[in-house]
């Protein structure tokens, strides 16, 4: 870092202490996530670095906890449930959310603020309240402790994210493109799939990924709405943390961190592509 020539000693000291402070905050943000990765390879059932691990002894590391997941029917069962629930709810949320965003971004949309308010309310209301309300209501209509009930609940929680990301993408959409296509003789559906869809696709996909991670991570609604048959990974983790935290939990956590890194990278790439298409320099 080059300082302007007039910077005094005090200026330099305060600048470096500022940088150290920021480094500490970054450490605070990222350390908790990184620390569990090596710990999940611990050969001993402890949650701290053993002496063997510190001296990088090969014996001190093992993949026994990962084997534990792969052979434990409960984890496999909940992983299957998680994938089914997250995928189905993402499909519902994405289709309905994208349609709604297409309507919302038209200037003719009546009662826009009110409709928007209702549509994003699942994101605003604290999860515990949504879960309580859904528990009362879904029990009444026989949907609690069923797979369809859980999928519907997660779909509704995911829709605001799709609506927000797709409306944001559509805000930068140049409507003269669709007019040009139509004036060249393309029909409505053809214009949509050939012109509009490819351009807003990044927004749709990031919205879908948000919806997916919302469902995949969600535990409060599952806690109230799902029975044993609908246990998902987070629910299984919750039980594990509550009862007896075992190193297997750390192995699952590590796998989940990898999933989030994957999702984050995809969303970032999409965001940059979208900005490049719009002629904004990637930020």
């Amino acid at each position, binding site marked *: 870092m080059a300082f302007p020539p007039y910077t005094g000693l005090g200026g330099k000291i305060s600048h470096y202490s500022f940088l150290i402070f920021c480094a500490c905050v970054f450490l605070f943000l990222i350390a908790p996530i990184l620390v569990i990765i090596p710990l999940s390879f611990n050969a001993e059932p402890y949650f701290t670095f053993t002496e063997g691990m510190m001296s990088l002894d090969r014996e001190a590391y093992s993949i026994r906890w990962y084997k534990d997941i792969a052979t434990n029917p409960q984890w496999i069962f909940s992983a299957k449930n998680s994938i089914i629930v997250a995928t189905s709810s993402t499909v519902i949320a994405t289709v309905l959310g994208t349609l709604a965003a297409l309507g919302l971004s038209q200037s003719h949309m009546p009662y826009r603020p009110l409709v928007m308010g209702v549509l994003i309310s699942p994101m605003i209301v604290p999860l515990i309240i949504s879960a309580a*309300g859904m528990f009362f209501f879904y029990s009444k209509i026989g949907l609690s402790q069923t797979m369809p009930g859980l999928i519907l609940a997660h779909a509704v929680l995911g829709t605001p994210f799709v609506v*927000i990301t797709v409306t944001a993408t559509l805000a930068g959409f140049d409507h003269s493109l669709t007019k040009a296509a139509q004036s060249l003789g393309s029909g409505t559906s053809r214009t949509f799939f050939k012109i509009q869809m490819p351009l807003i696709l990044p927004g749709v996909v990031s919205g879908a990924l948000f919806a997916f991670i919302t469902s995949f991570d969600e535990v409060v609604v599952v806690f109230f709405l799902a029975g044993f048959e609908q246990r998902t990974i987070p629910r299984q983790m919750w039980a594990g943390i509550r009862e007896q935290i075992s190193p297997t939990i750390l192995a699952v956590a590590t796998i989940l961190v990898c999933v989030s890194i994957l999702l984050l990278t995809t969303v970032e790439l999409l965001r940059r592509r979208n900005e490049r298409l719009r002629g904004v320099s990637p930020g």
Partner: protein
Amino acid sequence: MSKPRLILFDRTLNKLTKSSLTSTADGLPLKQSLKKAERGRRFKALMFVLPLLAFVSVSFVLPIFDMLFRSVDNPVVSTYLPKTIEKLTLWKGKELPKAEVFETLAKELLIAKKNRTIGKVAARLNFETSGMRSAINKTVRKIKKYKGTRYKEALIKFDKRWGETNTWDTIKRIGDRYTGVQYLAALDLKMGPEGSIIAQPEDRQIYVKIFLRTLWISLVVTLTCLLLAFPVSYLLATLPLRVSNILMVMVLLPFWTSLLVRTTSWIVLLQRNGVVNDIIVWLGIIDDGSRIQMVYNQTGTLVAMTQILLPFMILPLYSVMKTISPSYMKAARSLGASPLRAFARVYVPQTVPGIGAGCLLVFILSIGYYITPALVGGQSGQLISNFIAYHMKSSLNWGLAAALGTILLFAVLSLYWLYNKIVGIDNMKLG
């Protein structure tokens, strides 16, 4: 425009639109045709939104209203002890009810016992006055064997509570189908004799304390987040894009990582035999015997919530700071302001929208927080959400859970209204 002139204007317009010059090809007047097209477009836009609107209304908004309704709905006693409640409406509450009321109650309790609904009645009364459950169970057991007809004396002999006007007052009060008693309970109050409102007994006053604790913890978390996020956002906004993009990953990765994973890591880090304690012992700050308990108490809740919510503060601050031109600061410096003064008087005021957005967002998220306090909070770190969950899952006092939930919901909604005024929900950005 005055009224006669307005009419004249309207007539001219009508005449104009009737003339052939302003008609569309299919012969319709232009004004009408435009209106029709406009209506058609509005309808089309609405058609796109309608499926989701219907879906959200049925599977989300309706359940929320169901919960609101449940907070005032009070069916148990009036359903299972209908005749007793009917007779009690005539009772003034000055002395004990007449003997026939005792008889009706005794008979209805027996019916409830036979229909296996007695448990619900006992539980409902017990929420109101502790000890009622055992009183009812004891009474029912004894009435079964009782052969006489003097129910009033018998009941009082079975349990002395039946000889107190307070007991009857309670039954009469929660015999109302719709009632606000759950809200009173949620605020540590209850109905006293003759319709007065009195405080709950000392040992049952918890919710006001929990509401205040929730607000306090949310406030501390919000301010800590602001303190930590401000310098970091400033750094991110002033660094060249290539560098700040890499650092941004450190903000976004926690944002995308599962909440449970992050909470688990905090347990692992902070527990008595955890990594942080190990480091402190290794550094020799404390000895091995006096390791600090940092998790399963309020400290755990505070630390974990701050880390989890920090990205929600950094992102809005960053996006605001990004738009502030550095030349303002330079101008202030060149006009003779000290670095501190230039920062405080020129830079900070420009970041106020970001501070407002970030603080409100973090505060709103933290007052509804459930998972983290439940897992790392221990006794002293439980927030209002945890009590809602407790009444839903364990004590099964759903009415009270709904009332507590409704209060929380209105708190959050009014904060969002504020957020919308300041930032606009449309401007909400994700990641």
